[in-house]
Every structure is written in structure tokens, then in C-alpha cells.
């Protein structure tokens, strides 16, 4: 306790100094980005990028249009310039996170336009694949938020996604019922999460190590089961895919209908979950206790909250969410489960948690940005644009890295996330 107090006392001045330093660095970075986008603007004068939209339904009537690339990049340059300026003037108080959140869709779009190179990009495909990529990441991030708000550092989202994907695919294949997939995935995720909580709470295993156990075990078990069972007996890996649904009336809206209202039920479910948990975390007694357990468990314990039970429950909920998100990966496409099919999405979800500052809605917004980056990558590699696929494929990981680095800046995690709780 005394050590903690000492660091707080020591930290204050140092913290402020560090924040000022960080905001200067950010301002410098924004200035650099301004210069780069200015260079791109001037070098792309007169270049047109061709887009199209499906106005009535997926694969329906084409609405082609073109945008001058230098106009887009001019906008990007202007906003980056303003961001740098405000950052410099306002220092640490500048809401840079929001600013980045707002500029990044435009930035991805401008990059896409610059790289199109004469080919035509279908924006309906672009937006729908953005949304569908955001599902596992956004719901995975929600799982991370619920767990970490309760004080349990949940780095095992990746593992639970993998388990959810495999179990969901098997359950759907065996029963032949579409809804069995997500349900089984969620339940198995909860089971795994319970095991993780048991290691971390009952045996006080370091939560990062416990999460690593799950992540390594998930890669091992799912790859093993795939090679030993799902591959030779492929009838276990032919899930009933969950099809997109057309929402009556709304899906008839021109342009927006095919993008927003003809999606997988997973998407609407995910949005519902995000809204539901935002309400639960900030507006209910359960949420208040959850946050208290994550911030100051001893205080929560003193007023009679059973922190241990609360953390177990939060971990089960996190497992349900992550397993559900995982089942989307194997059930949304046609291929079923494949080795390492989650491809780091669980870790990208962790980055979304950080970028969203442990708020479900912001984290979902962050996963939309990741979704855009990935959608742009897929679109460009599908169009056969000059860049080598390996560079395109690593873009989501690079973006995650940049986001976690927070462009130099700290967000405050729940104070007790990662610390075991002693119920004296």
C-alpha cells in the first residue's frame, strides 16, 4: 500500500510532463501526416477514381460515379493540418482519439481511391464486408470489455473465437439446425471462459499466463481436431450457413438498403448486444458493481459486493460473447472451420477495446475502422491492384499496432484489471 502511495505521489508531476510530451509528439506526427497527404494530393491531380454502388439489391443495378482523387486527399490534408494545429494549441486536452476516429474512414477511403489505379470499386461490397468484419472483432471487444471492467484481464479472446468457430461449425453440421451453431459456440466459449476464470481466480494464476494457456490450447486443440476429425470426416464440418436476411421495407431503400438492411442476422444481433451492454454497464446496478469490482475491488467488497462471484459471472458472459463471435467466423461463409481461422481477430479486438477506452460503442466504432481497413485490403487484392498481397494482408496488423501505440498516448484501463482479488 505504502509503495502504491509513493508511486502516486511521485507520478503526478511526471505524468503531466509525460502527457505534454506525448501531445507534442502527436502534434508532430499529425504535421508529418499533413505533409505526406499534401504530397499525395499534388501527385494525384487530375486522377479520377471510379466507384459504383448497387442501388436496389446485392448484384442489382449499378450506379457508377467517379471522384477526383486530389479532392479527397485535399480534404484529408486539411483535416490532418487542423488536427495538428489543435493538438499543438490545446496540448493534452485535445480529443485526439475522437479526431482520429472521425478521420480514419475518410483516410481509408482516400487510400482506396488512390490505389484503385483505374479499376472500379464496388462500394456496396466494400461497406458490407466492412460491417461483416466488424462483427467478430466488435463482439470480441465487447467480451474483453465486460471481463476487464470486472477486473479480469481477458487476453484469451483469440482462443475463444477459435473454439467458438470450431464448436459452432460441428454443432451446426451434426444437428442440421442453423441456430445450433451460434448457441453451441457461445456455450463452449462460456465453458472455456469459466476454466480461465477458475485458473485466474481460484489458483491466482497470472491472468496473462492463464489467457496464454487458453490461446495456445485453442490453437492446439482446434488444429488437432481439424486434422484428426473434421478433415477425414468432413460431414462434421459442413455447417448450415447463416444467411443474410432482407428486412422488409427498409431493405427497399435505394443504396442504403443493400448496405445496411440486407445483412447477416449476426450483425443486427451484435449491434443489439453492444447497445444492451452499454446500457447495462453504465445504467444499472449490475454495471455499477461490475465497474467497482474492476476499479477498486476492496471497496466493492466492503460494501458487500461478492467480487469473486461477480468476476466469475462476468467471465461467463465474456465467454458467451466471444464464443458467439467465433461462431460467426465459421458460419458466415461457406467453408466451415479451418485451421487458425480467427487469424488474430481476437487480438485486434483487444486493440479495439483499448482504442474504444473500454466503452462498448466506441470499441465497436474502432472495430468498424479495422473492418474498413480489411475490406479495402480484400477489395484491392480482389481487383489485382499492383501492390503485393503480403503487404495488403499485413495492413490490418499494422493498423492494430498503430492503434495500440495510440499514436503515443495512454488510456486508463480499469485499475484492477489483471490483479487477483483476495476475499479476506
Amino acid at each position, binding site marked *: 500500500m505504502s509503495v502504491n502511495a509513493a*508511486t502516486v505521489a511521485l507520478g503526478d508531476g511526471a505524468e503531466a510532463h509525460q502527457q505534454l510530451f506525448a501531445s507534442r509528439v502527436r502534434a508532430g506526427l499529425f504535421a508529418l501526416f499533413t505533409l505526406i497527404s499534401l504530397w499525395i494530393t499534388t501527385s494525384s491531380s487530375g486522377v479520377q477514381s471510379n466507384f459504383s454502388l448497387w442501388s436496389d439489391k446485392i448484384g442489382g443495378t449499378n450506379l457508377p460515379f467517379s471522384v477526383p482523387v486530389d479532392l479527397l486527399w485535399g480534404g484529408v490534408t486539411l483535416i490532418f493540418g487542423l488536427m495538428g494545429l489543435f493538438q499543438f494549441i490545446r496540448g493534452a486536452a485535445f480529443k485526439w482519439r475522437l479526431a482520429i476516429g472521425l478521420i480514419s474512414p475518410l483516410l481509408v477511403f482516400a487510400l482506396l481511391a488512390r490505389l484503385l489505379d483505374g479499376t472500379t470499386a464496388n462500394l456496396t461490397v466494400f461497406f458490407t464486408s466492412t460491417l461483416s468484419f466488424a462483427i467478430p472483432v466488435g463482439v470480441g471487444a465487447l467480451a474483453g470489455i465486460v471481463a476487464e471492467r470486472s477486473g479480469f484481464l481477458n487476453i484469451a479472446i483469440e482462443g475463444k473465437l477459435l473454439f467458438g468457430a470450431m464448436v459452432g461449425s460441428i454443432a451446426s453440421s451434426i444437428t442440421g439446425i442453423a441456430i445450433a451453431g451460434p448457441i453451441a459456440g457461445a456455450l463452449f466459449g462460456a465453458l472455456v471462459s469459466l476454466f480461465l476464470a477458475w485458473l485466474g481466480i481460484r489458483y491466482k494464476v497470472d491472468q496473462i499466463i492463464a489467457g*496464454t494457456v487458453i490461446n*495456445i*490450447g485453442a490453437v*492446439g486443440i482446434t488444429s488437432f481436431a481439424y486434422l484428426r476429425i473434421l478433415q477425414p*470426416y468432413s460431414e462434421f464440418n459442413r455447417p448450415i450457413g447463416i444467411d443474410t436476411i432482407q428486412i422488409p421495407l427498409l431493405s427497399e431503400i435505394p443504396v442504403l438498403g443493400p448496405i445496411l438492411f440486407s445483412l447477416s442476422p449476426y450483425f443486427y444481433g451484435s449491434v443489439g448486444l453492444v447497445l444492451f451492454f452499454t446500457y447495462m454497464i453504465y445504467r444499472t446496478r449490475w454495471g455499477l458493481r461490475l465497474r467497482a469490482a474492476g476499479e477498486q475491488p476492496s471497496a466493492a467488497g466492503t460494501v458487500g459486493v461478492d467480487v469473486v462471484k461477480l468476476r466469475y459471472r462476468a467471465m461467463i458472459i465474456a465467454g458467451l460473447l466471444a464464443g458467439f463471435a467465433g461462431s460467426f467466423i465459421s458460419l458466415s461463409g461457406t467453408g466451415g472451420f479451418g485451421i487458425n481461422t480467427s487469424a488474430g481477430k481476437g487480438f485486434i479486438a*483487444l486493440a479495439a477495446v483499448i482504442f474504444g477506452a473500454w466503452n462498448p460503442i466506441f470499441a465497436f466504432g474502432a472495430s468498424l475502422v479495422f473492418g474498413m481497413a480489411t475490406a479495402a485490403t480484400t477489395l484491392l487484392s480482389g481487383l489485382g491492384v499492383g501492390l503485393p498481397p*503480403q503487404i495488403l494482408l499485413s495492413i490490418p496488423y499494422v493498423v492494430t499496432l498503430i492503434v*495500440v501505440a495510440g499514436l503515443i498516448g495512454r488510456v486508463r484501463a480499469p485499475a484492477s484489471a489483471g490483479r487477483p482479488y483476495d476475499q479476506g
Partner: protein
Amino acid sequence: MNTLRQFGSKVRVPALSIFVALLIGALFLVFTDIEVLGMLLSDPLGALALGFGRAASSYSALFRGAFGDPANFSKALASGDVQLWARALRPIVESVVASVPLIFVGLGVSVAFRTGIFNIGGAGQFAMGAVGGAVAALVFGAGVIPAPIAILLMMFFGLLGGALWAFLPGLLKARVGASEVITTIMLNFIASQLIFFLVSNVEFIQKPPRIQPVSKELSQFVDLPGILPIASLRLDISIIVALISAVAVSWFLFRSTRGFELRAAGLNIAAAKYAGMGASTSIITAMLISGAISGLGGALVAVGTVKQLSPGIAGSVGFTAIAIALVGGTRPSGVVATALVFGLLQHGGSLMQVETSIPIEMLLFIQALVIAFIAAPDLTLGILKNPFRRRQVKAAK
């Protein structure tokens, strides 16, 4: 006698962890066998007999793959023929070869763990070391530079590649508190894409017909000398470098001031700061050293053992290294011993895969169990001690 007992108490939990994990692995093998599961209702005893019989034969393949076939040894003893000896010894030598990357990355990861950094980017740092070593081998190994110097340069650039790949997460952790778990994992993905890019787009690196995504044969440029009298057994100087690295890490961590500072930061970063040790410097130094050791391993393995650079060069070495570091108590001697055991499992597992088509991925499951047991010593000791402890309590009453 006392030292023996001390040794016993040190080894007990790790050994028990590995043993119990292997037992659970056997159960896992039985209950993922579709034929056994199908028979389980109609003929449960027969099903279990079949299942455990198969598991036993899988494990027997694993042990023959790890240590060698006793039949081959007796043949070799009887005839004394060099060829037969080579055949008998090959499995165990290959197991040692398999443990070389594990020693390096296990050591690297241990240095980070000791400083309180959970570096799970061992695979990426190993891979970038392989890139550094491979490129250096291609540049310097063309014949102008004498072989020993080319080997040294190759090792140096491997070191550099790994250190570079670990520097960024270290810097981010120290300066902005970015979680190393996420940054190192992302860098693992980026490293393997980068290698993919290099070996499929760069003419200087890619193998001549330029169809497959692999590099040129590196042993044509730099050839690591073997250390065994039988030429067909491929154990090269990398094992010696690995052991020297272990001694160096041991000296560094436990005998040098800087090492003391790292360990202090790992034990209690607030107290270390209070005592005037730069926490940021400790974090960055630890990551640089950690990455450098993994990178050195990557260079030696790519050039000496695999003799090629390919996107999958690191495999699951990063995960295995975590298990090794924890089982070995993040102590260099423990890491070397555990890496040898895991090397045996690894090479044994590959024979098991060939003979009984049990996927080698099963080892990852076993490693996860081992980490869980080591990280929860109460759980492990509970399995070992409980029956005895109860009796003792009763006797005391």
C-alpha cells in the same frame, strides 16, 4: 545428499507437470478417435481397449522418435558399423537439433519474463533473425569473405534482426504503456508476411525458378560446421552457441548490475523506480536482449538446420518457448534442460505423426497444460500431495 534433495524439489513440479500433461494427452487421443467413440456405446470395454491401445502405440512411436529404436541400438552394438550407429543415434541427435531453436527463444523469452514483460513475440523475433541471417549469408557467403567471418557476420545480422523486431514493442511499452501482448503478436503476423514477401518477390533471395515461396539454398553460401564425428548426423555448432548463450544470459541476469536492475524491475517496478533505476531503460534493454537471442537462434536455424528461409520458419516456436521459460523457472539452466525435453517431444511427435497420423499439433495442447500446471503450483502439488498430506495431518493429530 542435500543438493540431491534440492535438485529433486526443483525438478518435481516441472517433471510432474509434463507427466500429467502427457497422461491427459493420452485421454485426449482416446476420446478424439472417431472409431472409438462410435464403438463406445455398443462395446465400451472393447472401445476403451482399442483407444488406449492406439494411444499406447502412438506414445511408443513418440518415444522411439525421440530417443531412437532400442532394436537399432542393439544392432549397432553388435556390428559396430558406423552406418548402423548413425541410424540408431539419428533420432536422439535430431531431438537435440530440434531443441536448438527452443533453447534460444526460451532464453530470450526468459530475459523478458524476468523483467516483467510478457514477450510472446518470440516467433516474430526468431523469424526476423532468420531474415537477417539469411540475407547476410547471401551477401557475405558468396566466397570472397572467409567462412568463419561470414558465419560471424551471419550471426550478427540475425542478432540485429531479432533485436530490431523486439525494440518496437519494448519502446512502446516503456514510453506509452502499450501492451506487449498485442504488439508482439501483431509483429509476429507482420514478420511472417514480410518473409512471404521477401521470398516471393525479391530475386536476390528467392530460389531460382522463382515458383515456390522459399529462399535459395543457404548452405551453398554459408555452411555451419558439424560437431559430431559421423558426418551424416547433422548437429552443428549452433548447439554450442546456444549453450554459450545460456551461460552468458545466466551471468548477465545473476551477476551483472544491469541484470540485477532488470530483475528488480520485474519483481516490483515501482520499488525499482523508487530506488532510482530507470524502468523504461530496463524494459527496452530487456526486449533488445530478448529479441537478439531469439534472432540469433533464427539465423543459426535458418542457415544451419533448415538451410532455407520460408514464411513458416518460426512455426510454433514462440508458444513452445513460453512453456519452456515457465517450466524452466526462467533460469537458463532450467530453460536448457526443458528445451531438451521439449526437443525430444517435438522430434518424437513428428515420428508419431508419420506412423500413427496423430497430428503433431497435439503437442501444443500438452504445452498449454504444462503451462497451466506450472503457473498454478497449488493445482499441481494438489494432484501430487493430497493423499499423503491428509494422512500426515491425521498422524499429527
